[in-house]
């Protein structure tokens, strides 16, 4: 079985995986980082979004071996100790979540957006979130949260 090693949330980790092991499986099962969710396993819902070398990616749709040697950030790695990341704080303040299942993926996608396009318009925010499905909120407060985080990030 191949060995993979990567930096996850700042820590060097490694493990033996099957070739077909998905990155999300490695994160959740080997590393017990269950903040990253699986809503579909087929690249539709975005619940599994993490950052690979700073870019958002659906971790259900890549293999663990493809992340070998990269820097991975999951939702658990976003806050600074007890202090929420500005995007997390914005979601909290603007009621950008209800059940919270989509939230880790939403937050990770949103952080990537604000980094890449700090001045994204509302339309661009909504377009960016097309790969993230939320069944609770109607998206409205998610967009508001992200607009707020554009000021605070």
């Amino acid at each position, binding site marked *: *079985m*191949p060995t993979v090693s990567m930096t996850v949330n700042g820590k060097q980790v490694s493990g033996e995986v*099957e*070739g*077909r092991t998905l990155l999300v499986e490695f994160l959740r099962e080997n590393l017990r980082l269950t903040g990253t969710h699986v809503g579909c396993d087929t690249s539709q819902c975005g619940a599994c979004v993490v950052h690979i070398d700073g870019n958002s990616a659906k971790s259900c749709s*890549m*293999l663990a*071996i*493809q992340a*070998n040697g990269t820097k991975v950030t999951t939702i658990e790695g976003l806050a600074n100790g007890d202090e929420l990341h500005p995007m997390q704080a914005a979601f909290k303040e603007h009621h950008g979540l209800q059940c919270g299942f989509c939230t880790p993926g939403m937050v990770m996608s949103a952080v990537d957006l604000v980094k890449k396009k700090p001045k994204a318009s509302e339309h661009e925010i909504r377009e960016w979130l097309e790969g993230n499905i939320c069944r609770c909120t109607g998206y409205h407060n998610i967009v508001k949260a992200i607009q707020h985080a554009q000021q605070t990030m």
Partner: protein
Amino acid sequence: MLLTLTVNGARRSLDVDPARRLSRMLREDLGLTGTKVGCDAGDCGACTVRLDGRQVCACLVPAAQADGATIVTVEGLADPDGRLSALQRAFHRHGAAQCGICTPGMLMAADDLLAVNSAPDHQAVLDALGGVLCRCTGYLKIVDAVLDVASNAPDPAMPEAGAAVGARVNRLDGHGKLDGRELYGDDQTPAGVMWLRVLRSPHPLADFTLGDIDVWLKITPGVLRVLTASDVPGHNSFGIYPTLKDQPVFAESFVRYRGEAVAGILVEDRAAFEALDLDGFPIAWTPRDALVGTEAGLSPAAEQLHASSPGNVLIRGRVKSGDVEAALAEAAVVVETEIDTPFVEHAYIEPECGWAARDGDRVTVWVTTQTPYMDRDEVAHVLGIAPKDVRVIPSAVGGGFGGKLDQSVQLPLAVAAWVTGRPVATLYHRPESMASSTKRHPARMTASLGAAADGRIIGFKFHGDFDTGAYASWGPTVAGRVPVHAPGPYRVPNVLATSAAVYTNGPPAGAFRGFGVPQAAIAGEALMDRAAERLGLDPLAFRLANALRAGDTTATGQVLHASIGLAACLEALQPRWDDWKPQVAAFNATARATRRGIGIGCMWYGCGNTSMSNPSIFRLGLKPSGRLTLYNGATDIGQGSYTIMAQIAADALGAPLERIDQVWGDTDRTPDAGKTSASRQTFVSGKAAELASRDLRGQILRAVNAGDDATLSFENDCVRVHDKEGERVLALTNLPVDGEGDVLVGEGTFDPPTTPLDGDGQGIPYATYAFAAQIALVEVDTELGTTKVLKMVAAHDVGKAINPTLVEGQIHGGIAQGLGLALMEEYIPGRTENLHDYLIPTVGDMPEIECILIEDPEPLGPYGAKGIGEPALVPTAPAILGAIRHATGADIRRVPALPHRVLAAIHATRHIKEEVE
């Protein structure tokens, strides 16, 4: 990552990206191109191999997963001495491989099954093969082959001289399709060539401006050059008809459909091709409101998509005889209908691919194609060079069905090779193939039929608007063929049948098995059923009473003289039909939610181009070695022209089939045998092959001064000629040879006699027609709306079955596609651009099929033969839809009959009943 694995018994170690697809590793790194790739998404199963014994889709297995594993591919099935395995031989004798692109996957799936179950039952075979798609065979011969492996029956013997026509000869090109050695479009790309990716429009109608390409080239690794419209050296336009070259190779400033080619991006190698990300390509789009459907295209407010076609009408077709309005007014019974059909995708399992190279002032294109000679002329037009300076060499073709009658990779490849001077290859991935290629025309049809009280049809009126999409392609062919065929294979004294091909912003609709006739038959045959019902007649009896017969005149004024086997087809079906009726009644008397029904569809189909010259030329050469070479330009796309032409040539010469070698479809070496379309190859090219063969025979006989009745025996340096005067010997080794090394060459040309149609569609559009009738037995779940076709019986008048196994294969495959048209297939741009959202029949969808071959010889055809390719599909959907109606009363006016539509139609009948009550 360093991998070690066992492949086909040999230990292999290689250093690969651990996430590389196993399919690519096998094909590209290990050279095992027997494993095919049809979708790269786990949908088609063409890539099936055995991994540690179990069948897997190699396209979904990361290389790392194969570390330490044992892999068996199709190349590992045959014995080391090359003798085919029992499984492969069963496929061969059953004719289970047509184009052969699915065959490796089928074999490996079956091999997995047989390893654990040496005597599987029918259901076990269906389960094992359920993940592998075949678009050609209709699966039945594949299933039969797997069930017959254990018998280990011997291969059929090659026929003796003079006995090839009519024999169930194994495909002469079958071996390579079974052992993985056949070279399809993506199996023969040399190393070191550039690769080309086409940038396509994501919008159905949009203006665009290109940004700074030079800057993009600098910041994008691996990209060599970008080709756009201004790089096209000759004409940036192509199209089937010389006067209708309305489609650009690369769009200029705006696009007319989603999937249209905008630019060609050249990269250094295949790895760069696969890694290429076009997201940052400098192009700005301004989408406009697209015209979706013929109603939008015809609306007075619609924008005009092509300058030469006001009102977006590309062309109209019309056939008029008698006075239809008067006939309908006096008819005892008049029935009417309106039917809508969708875009349908060819879904050949092999996507478009090929490569091209320039050599001085000539260019050569290797490509998967149905029409090498048209490709040659189109490339010449686009490059602005003479056709003689273009050579097209077809690869083995992994399915076509009309879709590979159009240009795809040929033109961008030729432009790239020409302007850079370097060889270049490309391959469309599945979504690109589906978005960019042509489709079956959606049709919106209205029709009415009037019959007299005694059951004679007296009038038929039809109009169909055919959505030809963004470009003309074969639209004029469809618009011309439909009005001729719309009245069906019946005596109808008063006809008005019209058609229009309408430009829209859909994908270009082109040639697809039947050229619009399958759509028209759905409307016409529905009316036949309803008229029969109103007259209180049995649907089969009503058709038989009105069937065309010798001496009848068609709506185009053509008097039919011979080979009109519809009545014979119907008579052959009658006993089955009579058996089914009480069975269905008994079933329906007890069943609740499921109901059964039977239906019938008839068709006729003109073989060859409509009122146009479409000659084929064949040559048969004799070598000093006493072997024969057939220069066969009739492209074999799986239907079997490689085998059929040789069978005909062998008998016409009086030589044993095994004496014939072939040079196949190379525009430099084989004369023009036209296109593999319009069910013309057996009829037209077959006749040319017969004439070439007779010409050679005549030359041999004259050389030794022998009479016509002489027999020939071919030996290794001479031909011995026997007639009543004894034996004479034609020595071959001292005769001069030509450029191909032949000492004698026979040539034959055949062009079926037709005449142009006048403004009322009067004339002789085709020299002969195929006839057929099929009956279907279906079961409909009236709660779910699902339909299962249980049985079909297909009776086809083929004139003469040159090779009955291949004819049956066409019927099975045609029925599979007809079933897809009736029940499941609907192409929606942007929505069903892959093989999991676009459904085609799997092995589990197929009914039992019985084929009945009627041989009412066509005097013009080779040994009486005519075409079967398209006729096989035409009657199927009408028979199935009629059976659904018989089962439930549901009148399906929009195909496919998806479950929700069937349910809605069933509910509509209940409403009607309630209102009546």
